[in-house]
């Protein structure tokens, strides 16, 4: 193991190579045209990437959240409902909606951890519940921010661009740095990695798996809600199908970026880069005129390939798995 160069040993190496390949491939295939679409690719990356940070953190702690897509949509619905029906301003509505998101995460976590139910099943249930609520409150269509609030400074700020880069992209960058630091250098970060590696070992060392995982659940739903609110501000509406398949995309991105469901090992910027790869594929395929179904199939293939590849490489290099 020691002979392996440090760079190749990092779990993010494959996604970095993947990202470079994707950018190079599309840049060449579209004769450079693709490069001009990078701002819009980044905008999609920001939407999904913020959610993927939470998913990656939770997967590192050994759990998974299938409800992120529904929470993304439902928190957007709550936000718009607060502005429309309750007459709140944008800023207080955002604060309350984010509080609701954190509560949803706490509910998921408490149900899973105290009743000893696998997180996959609890969040599968809440995925249905919040999607159902979203469908009912949007009547199957969409909800929009009231007209008089569309010029609100917060909304304008979120719609704004700095050097042609969307504000949400900058928020994603800040969050990525913040959570990379949190996972690598802080106490909560090492607790998360510890409980993901082995709950019994963590407990023996005085780290509470329940408290740690609960925090991860809350952060995950909070970030899903945050992204939902940001997108609601940016686009002005929430649709009944907003965030559908987001759970699948974020999990795929997390795996591509080096997380495994076994927990203990994880990265934040790897998965964010993974989202960039997926969004580039989406944009690039559209530009090349390929049907959107290719994207879905490709995400699946990438997920499978990135599951198998590390294990293949490890066994070739003689590293015990």
């Amino acid at each position, binding site marked *: 193991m020691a002979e392996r160069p440090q760079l190749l040993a990092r779990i993010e190496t494959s996604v970095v190579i993947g990202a470079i390949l994707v950018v190079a491939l599309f840049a060449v295939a579209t004769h450079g045209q693709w490069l001009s679409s990078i701002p819009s690719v980044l905008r999609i990356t920001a939407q999904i990437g913020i959610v993927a940070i939470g998913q990656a953190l939770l997967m590192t702690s050994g759990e998974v959240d299938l409800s992120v897509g529904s929470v993304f949509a439902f928190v957007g619905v709550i936000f718009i409902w607060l502005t429309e029906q309750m007459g709140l301003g944008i800023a207080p509505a955002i604060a309350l909606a984010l509080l609701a998101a954190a509560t949803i995460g706490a509910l998921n976590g408490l149900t899973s951890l105290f009743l000893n139910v*696998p997180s996959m*099943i*609890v969040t599968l249930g809440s995925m*249905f*519940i919040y999607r159902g609520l979203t469908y009912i409150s949007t009547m199957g269509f969409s909800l929009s921010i009231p007209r008089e609030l569309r010029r609100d400074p917060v909304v304008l700020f979120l719609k704004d661009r700095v050097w042609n880069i969307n504000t949400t992209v900058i928020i994603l960058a800040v969050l990525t740095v913040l959570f990379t630091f949190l996972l690598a250098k802080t106490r909560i970060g090492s607790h998360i990695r510890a409980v993901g590696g082995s709950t019994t070992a963590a407990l023996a060392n005085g780290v509470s798996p329940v408290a740690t995982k609960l925090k991860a659940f809350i952060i995950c739903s909070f970030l899903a809600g945050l992204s939902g609110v940001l997108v609601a501000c940016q686009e002005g509406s929430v649709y009944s199908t907003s965030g559908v398949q987001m759970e699948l995309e974020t999990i795929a991105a997390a795996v591509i970026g080096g997380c495994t*469901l076994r927990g203990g090992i994880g990265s934040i910027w790897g998965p964010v880069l993974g989202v960039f790869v997926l969004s580039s594929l989406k944009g690039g395929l559209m530009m090349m005129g390929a049907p959107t179904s290719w994207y*879905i199939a490709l995400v699946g293939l990438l997920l*499978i390939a990135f599951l198998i590849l590390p294990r293949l490489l490890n066994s070739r290099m003689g590293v015990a798995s």
Partner: protein
Amino acid sequence: MLKNLTSRPEAVVAATALALFLVFWGLIGEAWLNDLPSLLRDVSWLGIVAIGSAIVIVSGEFDLSVGSVYAFVSMIFLMLMQSGISPALAFLLSMALACSIGALSGYLVWRFKLPSLLLTLGFLFVYRGLVEWITEGFPLSIAEEIQSNWLLQLLGGKTLGLHNSIGICLVLVLFYAVAMTKARFGNHVHAVGDSEVAASANGIPVGLVKVKVFTIGAMLAGFAGVISAANLSSVSTTTASAMEFEAIAAVVIGGVSLLGGAGTVWGAVLGVFTLITLKHALILMGVNIFAYQIVLGVVLVGVVALKGVVPKLLAAEWVSK
């Protein structure tokens, strides 16, 4: 004796299902009985899928791709017939396809020690993408002149006012219930689900068992897809989307342990009956169809949570006595 009967989770499900059925009969009246044939038809379709899911979960794995396999195999079945191949041959070919899809998942899970949840999530994308790509979003249908073919009539027709698929489902339940409880195969599946290490130490070919289990899961999903295609004479892109979640919910309600090693096939089918009863009742009572999603989520989380809580309560009561 009575204690023995009520302590089985399947007994609780059977009682619940029966109670629900009677309550809705009382609430809805005549229309409920008129709906019975189509209720049982839907139970048989999802039931066949759930048999496979139950076996996979008892072996300690998950298969999230069943809904996509259901759609993909039935689509291939229709396309083969459209290209002029006889229904019987098309049926055999699509069953072979379903089996190889399952064998591939099982082999990859075993060979690379992959988390089956993530791998089959990948395949969910891949097969759904293929369905969307090939059908280009349009439904496929069976030509008029072959709709009266004996095989299609056998699979999708009616006898004495009831759909043949109900009989097929019952035969399959019996067959797999016996295979899981009385045959060596079932013994092996339970052993592998309980503890892979112990199973392999006792000379059980773990890899082979996994391949078999996934093959059966995909085969039954494909078979259910073909049956429904024969009955409806068409397949659309959204056929059976989210079916894997319904199947897992049904299996959980039917008393199968998500940790593997315990559960029955007929319990899973009773779980399907409970879910479909709820679904049809909501539709007949004119409740918003999206409420079904919420009910599905609540029931799923509720049942699993109850399973975690009830034994603890019972144990506490026993101790206090």
